[in-house]
């Protein structure tokens, strides 16, 4: 079952829309389970999914705590004197935010199942201007490299004698900011070199461009797209109504 990348894109958009509209942890949990089932169908196993979501754990925890504290509610769990810190409503609100993030991130994993070239091709055949599709796709391709570089700079900082575990929070933020210097600089240079290389290969030299391959929407694609849109529409209507 080889789906056109555009079908997958539609699915991701549908799931994300539902994630943004649903507002209770219960609903979002159901959505998350459906997303996971979808990922299993596309041959993702739990280990890969967990590995992909691992970097977001810290962010999710942070969001959970912040949201819980700043969402007022009546049924107080924890209070400091007269000030109520955390209520049940707050915890639920925190869970909502985290689950929403989980759903969207997991759904986005579908983007890793097709090549950047097919992605561009698909968008272009739907009349998205080539340059934009190209830019988005190239950016997506270079993101993991970006991440590797950040890791390298972090290693360099530590090897220079900075024990990150012993650095207090405030200073840690300053330290992370330092990371950006070399990474941004290098990537700007890289982008420039890439642009030059592209220019040397006649990029945008002509208003029209040939495409060696054609992506054709198969029947299964139409089915998937229609089904996704329909189901999403129905679910949204029921939820709002």
């Amino acid at each position: 079952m080889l789906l056109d990348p555009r079908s997958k894109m539609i699915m991701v958009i549908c799931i994300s829309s539902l994630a943004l509209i649903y507002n209770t942890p219960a609903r979002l949990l159901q959505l998350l389970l459906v997303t996971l089932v979808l990922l299993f169908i596309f041959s993702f196993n739990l280990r890969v999914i967990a590995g992909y979501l691992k970097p977001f754990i810290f962010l999710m925890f942070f969001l959970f705590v912040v949201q819980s504290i700043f969402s007022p509610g009546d049924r107080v769990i924890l209070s400091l004197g007269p000030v109520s810190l955390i209520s049940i409503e707050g915890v639920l609100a925190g869970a909502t935010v985290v689950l929403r993030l989980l759903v969207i991130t997991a759904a986005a994993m579908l983007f890793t199942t097709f090549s950047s070239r097919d992605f561009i091709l698909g968008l272009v055949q739907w009349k998205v201007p080539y340059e934009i599709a190209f830019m988005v796709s190239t950016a997506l391709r270079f993101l993991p490299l970006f991440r590797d570089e950040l890791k390298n700079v972090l290693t360099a900082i530590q090897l220079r004698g900075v024990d990150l575990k012993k650095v207090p929070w405030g200073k840690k933020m300053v330290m992370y900011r330092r990371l950006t210097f070399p990474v941004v600089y290098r990537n700007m240079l890289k982008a420039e070199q890439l642009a030059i290389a592209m220019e040397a290969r006649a990029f945008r030299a002509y208003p029209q461009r040939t495409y060696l391959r054609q992506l054709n929407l198969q029947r299964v694609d139409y089915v998937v797209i229609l089904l996704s849109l329909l189901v999403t529409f129905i679910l949204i209507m029921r939820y709002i109504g």
Partner: protein
Amino acid sequence: MDGRIELIDATKEYKHAGSPPVSALNCVNLSIRQDEFVGMVGLNASGKTTLARLLNGLILPSRGKVLVNGLDTADLAQKKEIRRLVGMVFQNPDNQIINPIVEEEVAFAAENLNLSPAEVRRRVDWALEVSGLADLRHHAPQMLSGGQKQRLAVAAVLVMQPSYLVLDEPTSMLDEDGRYELIKTLQDLNRHQRLSIIMISHRMEEVAPAERIIVLHQGTVYLDGPPAEVFRSPRFALAGLKPPPIARLTNSLLRQGHPIDDRIVTLEQMVEFLCR
């Protein structure tokens, strides 16, 4: 075809705020024929890279002219044609390769030229063949060795069917095997496809097989001639360069009166001579 790239009184200056303009290239006059294999050498700030970028119009001279087969690089209307005629390959293959499949990477430039799909396919097949990458056409570029990646970069440019191929330090990130592969591919391209190769390098052994070596020093053409002559010239050392080992061996033997062919500068040539 009797084409050539000509630099006429080409000067390139860079202006930095608060200081006098720095001249990267100074009144350079040069002519390169459409089937020459030229090696361009010089120390780091000698102007090599600037000159390379002038050859296909990536940068324009501050004064003077650069003509490619008679077309002026300053003429915007000719930009497309000049870019097609003069292909460029850069130092770092990772900053040139953008597609996840070899075949598609090669097709990129041909597609940009808006050729018919059949023509694109034909050129891709040809480019892969002459770069020795036909077996790897469905592979992912990240899985290739450094030498293979650079050959891919060459193939990706060949597909435009240029008349000249300029390579800016293409071997500096490659190990010995990679360098050997790339240079052999370039030699084949020069001999069999009649493609002019202009290769910038800082390794003298690499430019020794060229038919002509241009030495740049402080923004001017310091030496220009066949390798053996250039390596033997006293000005060569003045430019801060040392001849490759085989050339030094030849010169040493000549000085001691041995009857050796004075044009020998590469290992292959020496072996051939000794085996006779």
